[in-house]
């Protein structure tokens, strides 16, 4: 079993950013848990894409039953630990808490979930789930992100053999490479993957499907395949001066910041292009890492930005400047080729926004070629894999898919729900065909 945490350099740029929501201690957690009203037909559970029994796990914290609490969470969401830290709880469970309607602050569901899962799963020698006898069935997962890990984990818990193939050096997908460090550091994401391995999941990194192994080989060797491909490279603007140092794709920059050894060079003026949550993440990270100034450039109005309001509010608090209704025209470079500004069109005028770094957060490409390795798997007009929402079944009945490659880019919790639903569907299918 690979210890992924040991493969990460100790000092990384992201380690400079501390948790915004630190782990609660036992007294704090119990105090907060006792506030929970234990709603029936609870709105937090309804709001959760994985339908975690939130009142159920919170009451278990209140009673001191931390392992039972963790099990309650993980039965519905096997990545309940990272979801506790990365979920936009403000618009999901906490945003639905009845306390929001009663002049009070909602229950800190995310932090309680972290408390339960972190403490309930730390001890690998005392697993919260028992292992089941091997069924002889084998599944392969393409990509080691949340959707694949959930699919693999739930099937492994039922005694099926699950092998995950990942082209990167580290598993975990965006949890490892893309989450804002003040929510989740890469080593914590890697630790969760180690816990998933302890459920019986095998992970092979540095293996690219389509290159190192073909789809046909996987279909031949395994009883089913899950495509948890995620998304591809950051999109480019296609404007003059874009190519060259100083212009980065947002997710690529974040990955570097999270995983590369050492600290970043001093950040000067940063201009982020985009209005989604990735754009907000990059902007906030740069601001927190000490950039001289951070501007976000968005082509429409601020109200139309797709990023969450709470992230926008956070960015404002951290000093990010918003430039709306601005269209990038060119990246301005000096004679030496260094980025000096991003030229935008705003209100009919051309304005040069000073920049030493331009980060592009305008979406990611789709990984069309991997899907094409599997006959019968179709892509929609956007390039997303076509899969049934409830079961993850694609046009090939032995191939399942879920997560960002299907939905075009949503939350980790949505990916986990997809992987889990596919696993439940497949396990039910196999159980009935056995019986």
């Amino acid at each position, binding site marked *: 079993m690979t210890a992924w945490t040991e493969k990460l350099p100790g000092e990384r740029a992201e380690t400079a950013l501390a948790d915004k929501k630190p782990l609660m201690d036992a007294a704090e957690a119990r105090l907060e848990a*006792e506030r929970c009203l234990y*709603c*029936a*037909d609870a*709105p937090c559970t309804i709001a959760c894409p994985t339908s975690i029994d939130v009142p159920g796990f919170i009451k278990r914290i*209140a009673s001191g039953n931390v392992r039972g609490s963790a099990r309650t969470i993980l039965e519905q969401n096997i990545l309940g630990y990272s979801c506790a830290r990365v979920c936009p709880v403000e618009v999901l469970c906490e945003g639905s808490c*009845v*306390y929001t*309607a*009663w002049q009070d602050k909602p229950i800190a569901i995310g932090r309680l979930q972290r408390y339960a899962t972190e403490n309930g799963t730390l001890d690998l020698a005392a697993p919260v789930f028992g292992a089941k006898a091997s069924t002889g069935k084998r599944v392969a997962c393409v990509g080691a992100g949340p959707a694949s890990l959930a699919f693999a984990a739930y099937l492994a818990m039922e005694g099926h053999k699950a092998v995950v193939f990942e082209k990167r050096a580290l598993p975990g997908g965006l949890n490892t490479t893309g989450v804002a460090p003040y929510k989740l550091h890469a080593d914590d994401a890697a630790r969760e993957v180690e816990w998933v391995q302890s459920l019986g999941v095998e992970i092979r990194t540095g293996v690219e499907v389509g290159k190192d192994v073909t789809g046909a080989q996987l279909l031949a060797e395994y009883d089913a395949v899950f495509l948890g491909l995620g998304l591809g490279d950051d999109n480019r603007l296609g404007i003059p001066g874009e190519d060259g140092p100083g212009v980065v794709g947002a997710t690529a920059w974040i990955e570097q910041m999270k995983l590369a050894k050492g600290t970043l060079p001093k950040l000067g003026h940063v201009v982020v292009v985009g209005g989604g949550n990735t754009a907000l993440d990059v902007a906030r990270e740069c601001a927190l890492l000490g950039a001289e100034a951070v501007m976000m450039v968005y082509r429409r109005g601020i109200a139309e930005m797709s990023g969450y309001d709470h992230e926008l509010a956070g960015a404002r608090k951290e000093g990010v400047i918003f430039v709306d209704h601005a269209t990038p025209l060119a990246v301005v470079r000096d004679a030496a080729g260094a980025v000096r500004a991003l030229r935008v069109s705003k209100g009919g005028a051309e304005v040069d926004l000073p920049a030493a770094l331009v980060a592009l957060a305008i979406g990611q490409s789709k990984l069309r070629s991997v899907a094409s390795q599997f006959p019968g798997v179709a892509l929609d007009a956007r390039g997303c894999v076509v899969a049934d929402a409830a079961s993850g079944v694609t046009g090939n009945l032995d191939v399942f898919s879920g997560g960002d490659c299907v939905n075009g880019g949503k939350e980790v919790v949505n990916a986990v729900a997809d992987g889990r639903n596919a696993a439940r569907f497949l396990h039910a299918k196999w159980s009935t065909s056995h019986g």
Partner: protein
Amino acid sequence: MADLSIDIAGIKGPNPFWLASAPPANTGEQVMRAFDAGWGGAVWKTLGDPIVNTSSRFGAIDYANGKVMGFNNIELITDRPLAVNLAEIREVKRRYPKHAVVVSLMTETKHDWHTLIRKVEDAGCDGLELNFGCPHGMCERGMGSSVGQEPKLITEITRWVKEVARTPVLVKLTPNTGDVVEAAQAARAGGADGVSLINTIKSLMGVDLERMVPNPRVGDGSTNGGYCGPAVKPIALHMVAAIARDVRGLPISGIGGVQTWRDAAEFLALGSSTVQVCTAVMHLGYRIVGDLADGLSEWLDAHGMKSVRELVGRAVPAYKEWGDLDLSYKVLAKIDPATCIGCQRCVVACQDGAHQCIFTGREEKARPPHAHAKGPARPPSPFPVGLLAGERVPWVDEPECVGCNLCQLVCPVPACITMQEVPNGKRDTWNERVARGAGKVPGGIHD
């Protein structure tokens, strides 16, 4: 401001708030600080032959985020020499002549009772309280609750005491008995001038599951202690009211979970002339008397009562036997959609714990046939649209509501669920039904 001064069985004091015989009334220094804080009287920690105590000796139960809902102790009577206590009593009375200093006593033989009483009365106390209630340690030695559980012993020892006592005698009763009224009657038969109750309830506070030793733990073991605090108030209220109703005219000093002026007012309304407080002081300090005094005074003023004595016993006539309750009286649960937060605790409580008549907005369309009602009872126009709770506001199937209060009790929002009276102009009690021969309910064993 209403007059708070009291007179219970001849013991006078500036207000009805006394420290109970317990650790807060252990020393003269404490009692004087309590008087400075505003307490009107104190019942001195029980005197007798000094004892030795254990470490530890207290236990508590917290509820949700509240500390010390219930409290227990295995401490015995005073561990200080009698002469020291007497000197301090003398000093307290010298400095605070208008405050009530009652001394709690516990000993064994008639001779010892007589000797002890002479000594404490010589020290200047205003009254005596006989500790027939302590349910731990002393009862194993034939004192405390082992006396209070035997009406004959209560009468006999009270008689011994009255042979020599020059000050009023209150008998402190134990709740660890089948019928506290019988105990009160026994005290009166022995000549008691009044009773005080309740003493603590025999209890184990819990178990240390790692050590398999109950709490409070004293090394490798524990013992039954005396339970008190807010959790015991309802038990105490009942016992006080039972004596007030059934042993008419016997002055009562009420004890058990008093923490606020409202608690005190309830004890007074059910027949107590004074209240005694221990746990709340151990938890929060003497300073709580500020709220007790001005809270009670405000309430009396607001209700046109010039003296606290007007409140004593006011609610006793309404404490009836079940058979005298009006079976025609009807209340229905009403949920205020404007304040409902949609938690649906009322729904689950009603469905699982009551009479299955509250339903969620979400499930209304798919509602299964009612367990015991015929036909749908959905009100035509439910709730305003656009509320945040919106469709989550539950609704009451009114013909099925028995008016049990459970929904209101579990609702976290004050005044969101109210129990509204449905006047029907009728009145009928069980006793009246039985009297007119209508005491048989169909569907019984012989039907």
